Structure formats: structure tokens, C-alpha cells
């Protein structure tokens, strides 16, 4: 070992042993870093139980001119003769599920109230309710994309 360490000038090329030793150290370091990265990646959820593109079934199951609450997905579907709109039922303040109250909505956690267009009437909510994008699946089912927000005027025409 000492032969490696002493008697070697900086300008001398590395001997094979030195190079291999350095390579060994480097590969150990890389292996350690890789193991750490793998370790850290595992807890990050890859498959969410909640899918952002939600299928809601046959369009005909929704009655006209009312807000229908789809409880498992926390969405309100509003259907008129013109088409479909979808409203997110999560309060923009801290994410509680709003309930319908009169023509509009109310959040029971901190008392934010909204009208039927999602505008905030009262309470600590900082922004209005989100209208979500409604689409049509190839098999004819209504789909809602909870990750995509649209304006409140858009309809899906069916």
C-alpha cells in the first residue's frame, strides 16, 4: 500500500493499481448515492387511488337543471338542455367538502359561502370554486378532468 502513496510525483501517470483503486472508490460512492436515490423514490406515490380523469357513467343518469353531487369524487354535475358543467366540491380555502345550501354552496369548516356560479360571497375563501373540464369518453360516458380548470361558461354539448 505504501508503495502507492509515497514516491509518486504529480506528473507521473497513474499506475493501473491507482486507477483501479480510484475506480473502486468512485463506484462505491455512486452505488451509495444510487441506493439513496432509490430509497427516497419509493415513498413517492406512483399510482394514486384518486384518478384525475374520472368517469361518471351514462349522461342520462343526471337529471336536468339541478346540481347532482357525485360523493365519491367530490364533484357537482350541472346539466341543462345545452350540455354539462362540472364544479369541484372542494373549498378553495383549506380543502373541505362544500355542501349545497339554497341556490349556492357553503363550506362547513370555516363558513365560506358561494353562489351558484362559484363566486365567493362570504368567508375566508381566497378564490372562487373551480369549474372542471367535462369530456366525453369514446364509449359515451361523461368524464371529468379534476386537474384541468375551465371557465364557468363552458358546456360539454351532448
Amino acid at each position, binding site marked *: 500500500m505504501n508503495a502507492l502513496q509515497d514516491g509518486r510525483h504529480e506528473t507521473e501517470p497513474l499506475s493501473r493499481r491507482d486507477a483501479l483503486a480510484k475506480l473502486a472508490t468512485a463506484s462505491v460512492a455512486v452505488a451509495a448515492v444510487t441506493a439513496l436515490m432509490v430509497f427516497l423514490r419509493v415513498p413517492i*406515490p406512483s399510482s394514486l387511488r384518486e384518478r384525475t380523469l374520472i368517469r361518471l357513467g351514462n349522461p342520462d343518469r343526471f337529471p336536468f337543471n339541478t346540481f347532482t353531487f357525485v360523493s365519491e369524487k367530490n364533484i357537482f354535475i350541472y346539466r341543462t338542455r345545452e350540455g354539462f358543467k362540472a364544479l369541484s366540491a372542494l373549498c378553495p380555502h*383549506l380543502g*373541505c367538502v362544500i355542501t349545497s345550501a339554497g341556490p349556492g354552496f357553503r*363550506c*362547513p369548516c*370555516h363558513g365560506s359561502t358561494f353562489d351558484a356560479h362559484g363566486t365567493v360571497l*362570504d368567508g*375566508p*375563501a*381566497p378564490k372562487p370554486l373551480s369549474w372542471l373540464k367535462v369530456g366525453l369518453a369514446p364509449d359515451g360516458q361523461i368524464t371529468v378532468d379534476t386537474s384541468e380548470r375551465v371557465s364557468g361558461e363552458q358546456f360539454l354539448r351532448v
Partner: protein
Amino acid sequence: MPKPGHIIRQNVGASLSSILAVLRRVRTERTSVRERSRSVSKNFFLHMHSTRTHLYSLRPGFTLGLGFLSFSLFLILLCTGVLLMVYYVPSVEHAYGSVKDISTVVTGGRTIRNIHRWGAHGMVAVVVLHLARVLFTSAYTGTRRVNWMVGILLLCMTILFSFSGYLLPWDQLAFWAVTIASNIVASTRELTDLAGITAVVDPGGFVRRLLLGGDSVGQDALTRFYLLHVVILPITTIVLIGVHFWRIRKSDGLAIPAGGDDLVLKAQGIIDPVALEEAKLRREHTVLSWPTTLWAEGSVLLTALALLMLSAILVDAPLLAPADVSMPENPAKSPWYFLGVQELVSYSAFTGGVLVPLLLLVAVVAVPFVDREEKGAGSWFGGQQGKRVVIRSALVAFFLTIGIMTIAIGVGWQWTRNAPAVVALIANPGSFLATLYAIWSWWVLRSTSSTKMGVFALVSCCLIGGIIITIVGIWLRGPNWEFVW
């Protein structure tokens, strides 16, 4: 050749006497100095202590025993926690039932659960007080800087512990508190939404997803919180506590004032300077850790145990109705140590939830880097000046906080909604208070020309301000988060 029976008797006798020798060693008056010091260095657990302890650091009024109190609480929580784990089931269908069974049928279960809960709340408070004590006695200077960081890490561990344990009973209180708190974590979205980059960069959302294992509080969240609470955090905390104690030893014990040695020896009647020096060399101002320090610490542990037992008898840990996703609590409140944050968040999610806590953390971590004054280290407030600064800062913070909160509550949320989002981000109680505290401590720093005083001023303001907004969050906010008086 001796007879076999004789050999056996001899061996048994020798074994007995070696066992009894251990017991004999307990009688401290009969042991010599050498034996006492050897027992500390040879014993695994006692080796955590240095062999000798400074008399000054044994004064109860000096440290208030807060550090060891935190550790005692941790030990008690560990033991009661393990007992609870025997019956608790971390599944959404069975969690509530198992906790209910612990409270009703398990022998002593109710008491154990109560001790665990009040111990947890107590630990959060005691750790904060310990931080305040270390800060106000300037015990973070010099070699103690690293230990200060480790201590901050331990504070974060404590809060994470309490937060992760809060969800486990899976009742209405737990479920909605964690829903609210996890949404506060995601409040970086307010800023990234303004910049329009949420789809690309969403740190708060990422952390929230990591914590919950998804986008909502469900079985995945319960599993992760349980994992945090019983495996990851205990291991990390125990390692950090070990480092914390080791650093104390490396810094030659607890911080004492500069003239601490002299104080002690003078009180013992040694005044002559030459005699003083000789006494210092002979270390007559220190005592052997065994048994004095151990008794001191033991009394703290037992006092903690007795107090927790008393609270367990007096008040039962709450268990509301089982968690019901369709029926939010009104008002839905996060655990009490987050309520100050929740109060600020109700005005601005980003400022209250991310900015102010982050700034607080940064400020607290930066304390030993800002204040490098060695003078006055080890004594409370570093003298009269410090005491004045702290009292004045406390008063200033008191009136400022109450004033700004009164205005904010009176104005309500109307104007933040009508104003553009950027304005709401900048002008809200959290940012106002932070700015005003900073200005005040800067002014103190300049007028006293002492970084230590600046630090004291800032931390006093933060403490008082934090207490006030936490009080508002706990008692002055009712259904619909309306102000109740």
C-alpha cells in the same frame, strides 16, 4: 483433588458475592471517589454523562430542568407508546375501534392512553420552553452552535411526532385536523398559482402527496403516519438525542456564566485568589455525576411521571365520533400548536402557512450565527440590559399583535377577496407582524449595538406574538371560523 461438591459450593459462593457486590456499590457513602468515577465510565448508560458535573449547572432555577424534562417525557412517551402498539390497529376500519377498546376494556388502557396524549402535548410545550431557556441564557455560542442545530432538529421531530400521532385514533377530531394541516402544507400553491407554474413546480403539493400517499386523507395516509410515528421518527430522534447529549459532553457540560467557578467557590468560603486557583485545579467546584446528577435527573423524571399521572386521572383524552368524510367538523381545527398558523392562513395561505413558519425557522437556526458575543453567555438574559430588552420587546409584541389582530378581525375577509391576489399576499397580518417584529429587533440591535439584544428582542416578540395568535385560534374562533368573545 477437592471434592466436586466443594467446588460447586465455592463457585456458587463466588457468583453470589459478585452479584451482591453490585448491590453493595449502591451505598454511596461507603464508596471511594475512585469507585464512584469508575462506575460512571464503565456503565453504558451512565457514560452518557461526563464523570464530573459543575455545581452551577445543578441549580434548579438555572436550567429549570427543561432539557431533561423533555427527555423524560420522551422516555415516558416511548414506553406508553409501545404499550399502546400492542392493541392499536393502523387500518381505517379498525383504528377507531381499537382505540375505543384501549380506553374501555384494556386494563389500564385508559390511563396509558391519557398519559401518552398529555405527555405529547406537554412535550411540545416543554421543548419550546427549553429552546427559550437555551436562547435566553445564550447557551448557543462557541462550540454549542452545532448542538443548537441538533436541538432545532429535535424540535421539528417533536412537532412531526405530535402531528403524526394525532391522526391515529381516526376520529372526527383527528381526521379533520390532519386534512386542514395537510392543506396548509400545500399552501405554496397560492404563490405558484399566481405565477402560473403550479403544474411544473409545486413543492407544497409534493410534500402533501408524500405525506398522504395520495390527494386525500385515507388508508395510505394512516399507514404513512403510523410508519413515521413508530419507526422513522423514533429512530431518528433517538440518534439525534444521542448526538445532542454527546455534544453537551464535548462542550464540557452545560453552559455556565463566565464567573461561574468563582461564584461557586466563593460561596464555599474560598476567597483568596491563590486558593481559588488551587481549588479550581482540584476541581472543588465540580461534583461527581454519580450520584448527584443522577438524583437530580431522576427527580425530574419522576416528577414528570407524577404530573402526567395526575393529568391522566383528571382529564380523559378526547375520542369523538368516528371519522366521517361527509360531515366536516365546524370549525375544523388543526392541533393546538398549529392553530396560530391556521389563524394566519385564514388571511393568506402562503404567508401564514409557508412564509412565516419558514422565516421563523430560518431566524431560529441563524441565531448562533448572528450572535457571536461570548460576553454574558451562560447567565439569564446576559445581565440587566438583556432583561430590559426582553420585557420591552414582550410589551411591544403584545400591543402590536393585539392591535393588528383586532384590525384584521374587524376588517374581516372581504377586502382580501376583492383585492388582487398579489396584494392579499403582501398585506396580511402575518406579513405585517413579521415585518414589524423585524423592524423592532433591528432597532434594538442598532440602539444597543449588540447582536445578542437583537436576537433576544426578535425571539421575545415571536414568542409573545405566537402565544397570542395561538390563543386566538384556540379560544376565540368558533363555528365558521367566526370571531367569538
